[in-house]
């Protein structure tokens, strides 16, 4: 193979290039000597061009550039540290955010052919549930009527008390259509999945365990398959165990039981509690499937006009369902790091430019020795690449540190199946952004200085081009920083708005816990005895002010509505519904909810007495406008008439950012139905609520030794959880904005300092001619502030446009908030002024004579 031999010789030549070069030099020297025509410099060029024939010049140059660049970077540690540090922050933050977006928005979901999986919801935005659940009746219609889905299965979350085999334990699980597992394409680790047959009531006494539960509670014993476990008093046969870490939609599911609905349930259309996931038939688009469902919806509306008025079924991709809440926040973070990245590149670009301009002499010498512009640019870019690589390596560490924080931002439905890690995709992103940083921050200075180097470097020329570049850089940095500052400002304001929202309860000093009902205490009489016994004992504890049982702690159950009828007004109209809560009499006192009119619930409101109900202000105002609500009677579809005995202040049950919803409260002694039977205990204490935990626990266990007690949290923590994620987003974006401001100031400082240093001689002349130093300082500052102002104006326009897009992230703040925008702009310009005044100050102390003597830089 001649070609092969040729490359081998090339490689050989490259390896021995030092020796070969020496030989060439000797040979050519001899030649020139014999010829007798000696011209200096000629020999070097000859050697150089002859070496090109070896074909490894590029690599050879690269190695030399690398060595040369490294020496330069080591010689100027300040520059290296500042430039690479700046880039490292941008690259690190960018990589961390990318890994989050990759993990949540880009990577395929861990199911078979996940792109075809769809989530079904009914849009009940009117009543506060934009992605609402649906009734078994509707579900059957969706499942049997559609022609576009390969299959669809329903599910909902449940909890069960595991007893008997070990410590009593309350666990979260899913009730799920047997057909859903095959749709998802999952195989159990051991045992089997559900059979279609197990959808029939009576044959559904089976359970599939999560791998985690099987290991933890049952010691990973394979012989568990076929054995029975006791779940909330009902024995179920374990038929299978899911693969390790396998979860569906919710990250904390410990078991699955089949959804087996009675025929009676399917004929009901008012109880909405099912979610569903289906799979599109091959080739069917989401739009076609949606149309299919809308046709069924029309039929359902006709057949059940009362329950299905304005029925709007929506199919969306499963990924959208799992991520739609976080997507805007992620995009905001992405926009934030993009701004940061550009600012960092602009800053580094200027740093590099100043540095190369200072090295102008060296470059000019190289240019005059015959180094072409391309060669010089290549060398400068190589140096920049080294700088960026250092930054990339440091950015890797920054990103990894950021993972700890960002992990908390993965939505719950994905937290089990995805991890933030430095895999090849994230690494590829890191490498790309490092390269981009090197080129973005390097091409301009490289090109500029190579050109001015070739033009024998007229000092005035290079100074002017540097200045025009600085104008662009300052404008860019100011604009980007202002966008970030405005965004952060809006988020901070939203956050404080949210924190200042009155939840409607006085959380301080309240301890809450869940005592999921035991099978023993499940009947009407038994559970009331349980409440009475526990409350009596707990209230007797020293330091306890009051205690109450309730359906749910506010904010813990964002649902549970019932339609209701008002006496004398005919059947319930659509949307005439309210949150339905059972609470013991001390509820209002314990949570600190003021009773506005009438009375609260009382011990005397017992089974035999007249049924009463306490409603909140929103219910009274909304359903009895301009009327006296007290004394009126309402009833739910199942219940009897209840007289409104009192009106209490609103509580934000649905979330702090959600306006209060109508609620009615009834006593568990007057409601026979299990639905919403109290299982949460709240205790108001003097002093630290957490300190009371064990005392309260002991009293509960004294009443019911097998009772599970879980979710023990002080009420302030429950409410704090509402803004926890928002706080994290706000902190992140504020940090980005702060770094951006700092970098922009550093950039402006650097530009000004450099321009002052370059124009020292000119300033000296002007001072000598009698110009007051303040004028000079003013002109320097203006030359910086003018582009900064233009940049700020551009940034402001951008910020307004962007924040309108990000409206869903804001709370109680209009997107074009003049206060925030003006404040951000003022802060930015003040910082810019300080950053340019500081270095230009030295004009005041400049000695004109000394300045004139100085050699022009």
């Amino acid at each position, binding site marked *: 193979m*001649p070609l092969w*031999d*040729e490359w081998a*010789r*090339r490689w050989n*030549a490259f390896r021995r290039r030092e020796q070969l070069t020496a*030989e*060439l030099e*000797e*040979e*050519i020297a*001899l*030649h*020139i000597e*014999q*010829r007798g025509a000696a011209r200096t410099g000629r020999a070097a*060029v*000859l050697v150089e*061009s*002859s*070496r*090109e*024939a*070896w*074909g490894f010049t590029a690599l050879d140059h690269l190695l030399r550039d690398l060595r040369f660049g490294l020496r330069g970077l080591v010689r100027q540690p300040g520059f290296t540290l500042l430039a690479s540090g700046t880039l490292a922050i941008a690259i690190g933050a960018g990589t961390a955010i990318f890994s989050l977006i990759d993990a949540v928005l880009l990577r395929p979901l861990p199911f078979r052919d996940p792109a075809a999986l769809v989530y079904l919801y009914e849009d009940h935005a009117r009543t506060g549930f934009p992605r609402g659940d649906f009734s078994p009746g509707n579900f059957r219609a969706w499942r049997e009527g559609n022609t576009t889905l390969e299959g669809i299965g329903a599910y909902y979350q449940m909890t069960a008390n595991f007893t008997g085999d070990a410590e009593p334990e309350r666990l979260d699980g899913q009730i799920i259509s047997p057909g859903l597992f095959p749709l998802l394409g999952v195989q159990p680790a051991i045992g089997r999945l559900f059979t279609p047959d197990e959808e029939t009531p009576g044959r559904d006494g089976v359970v599939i365990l999560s791998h985690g539960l099987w290991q933890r509670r049952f010691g990973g014993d394979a012989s568990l398959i076929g054995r029975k476990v006791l779940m909330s008093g009902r024995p179920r046969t374990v038929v299978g165990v899911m693969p390790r870490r396998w979860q569906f939609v919710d990250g904390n599911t410990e078991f699955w039981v089949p959804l087996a609905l009675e025929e009676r349930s399917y004929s009901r259309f008012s109880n909405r509690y099912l979610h569903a996931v289906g799979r599109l038939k091959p080739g069917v688009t989401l739009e076609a499937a949606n149309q299919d469902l809308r046709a069924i919806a029309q039929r359902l509306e006709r057949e059940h006009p009362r329950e299905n008025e304005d029925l709007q079924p929506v199919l969306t991709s499963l990924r959208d369902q799992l991520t739609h809440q976080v997507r805007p926040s992620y995009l905001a973070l992405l926009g934030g790091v993009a701004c940061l990245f550009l600012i960092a590149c602009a800053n580094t670009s200027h740093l590099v430019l100043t540095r190369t301009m200072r090295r102008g002499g060296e470059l000019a010498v190289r240019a005059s020795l015959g180094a072409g512009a391309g060669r010089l640019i290549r060398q400068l870019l190589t140096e920049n690449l080294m700088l960026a690589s250092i930054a990339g390596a440091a950015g890797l560490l920054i990103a990894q540190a950021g993972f700890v924080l960002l992990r908390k931002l993965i939505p719950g439905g994905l937290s089990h199946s995805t991890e933030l890690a430095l895999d090849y995709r994230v690494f590829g992103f890191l490498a790309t952004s490092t390269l981009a940083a090197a080129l973005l921050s390097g091409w301009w200075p490289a090109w500029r200085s190579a050109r001015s180097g070739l033009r024998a470097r007229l000092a005035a020329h290079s100074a002017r081009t540097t200045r025009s570049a600085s104008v662009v850089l300052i404008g860019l940095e100011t604009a980007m920083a202002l966008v970030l500052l405005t965004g952060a400002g809006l988020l901070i304001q939203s956050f404080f708005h949210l924190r200042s929202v009155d939840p409607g309860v006085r959380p301080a000093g309240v301890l809450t816990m869940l005592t999921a009902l035991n099978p023993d205490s499940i009947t009407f009489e038994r559970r009331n005895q349980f409440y009475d016994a526990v409350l009596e004992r707990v209230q007797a504890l020293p330091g306890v002010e009051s205690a109450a049982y309730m359906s749910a702690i506010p904010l813990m159950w964002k649902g549970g509505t019932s339609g209701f009828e008002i006496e004398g007004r005919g059947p319930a109209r659509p949307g005439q519904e309210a949150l339905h809560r059972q609470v013991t009499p001390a509820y209002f006192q314990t949570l600190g909810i003021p009773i506005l009119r009438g009375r609260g619930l009382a011990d005397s409101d017992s089974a035999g007495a007249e049924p009463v109900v306490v409603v909140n202000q929103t219910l009274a105002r909304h359903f009895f406008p301009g009327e006296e609500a007290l004394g009126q009677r309402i009833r739910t579809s199942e219940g009897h008439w209840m007289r409104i005995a009192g009106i209490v202040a609103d509580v934000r049950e649905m979330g702090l950012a959600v306006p209060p919803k109508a609620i009615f409260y009834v006593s568990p002694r007057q409601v026979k139905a299990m639905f919403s039977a109290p299982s949460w205990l709240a205790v108001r204490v003097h002093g630290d609520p957490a300190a009371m935990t064990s005392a309260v626990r002991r009293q509960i266990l004294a009443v019911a030794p097998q009772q599970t007690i879980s979710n023990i949290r002080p009420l302030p923590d429950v409410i704090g959880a509402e803004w926890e994620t928002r706080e994290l987003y706000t902190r992140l974006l504020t940090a980005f904005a702060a770094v951006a401001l700092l970098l922009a100031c550093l950039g402006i400082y650097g530009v000004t300092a450099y321009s002052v240093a370059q124009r020292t001689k000119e300033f000296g002349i002007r001072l000598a001619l009698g110009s007051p130093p303040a004028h000079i300082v003013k002109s320097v500052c203006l030359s910086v502030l003018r582009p900064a102002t233009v940049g700020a104006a551009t940034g402001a326009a951008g910020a307004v446009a962007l924040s309108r897009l990000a409206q869903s992230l804001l709370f109680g703040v209009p997107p074009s908030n003049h206060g925030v925008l003006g404040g951000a702009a003022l802060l930015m310009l003040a910082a810019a002024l300080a950053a340019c005044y500081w270095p230009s100050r030295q004009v005041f102390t400049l000695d004109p004579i000394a300045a004139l003597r100085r050699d022009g830089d």
Partner: protein
Amino acid sequence: MLVLKTLARLGPMHGYGIAQHIEETSGDVLRVEEGTLYPALQRMLIKGWVLGEWRQTENNRRARYYRLTPAGRKQLARELSGFSRVMAAIGRVIESEA
């Protein structure tokens, strides 16, 4: 081609000698610039058409002598035949012109 031919005719020579020979035999019509010669020699070394070895010159200096390899000989033949084809073609064009 001229370098190869020179080496083929006179055996191993150093760079200066090659240049001298070409200039002399061409009656000073063809001048060989070192800027062309040395890159060309390096290229031929890489291609494997010539080999270089260090020897003493007549006046006792060290110089690199280039020697034709079999591959170089083949290359020379190829280039010569190509060249004579082109020459013949040019000749025919010129004659038809006259």
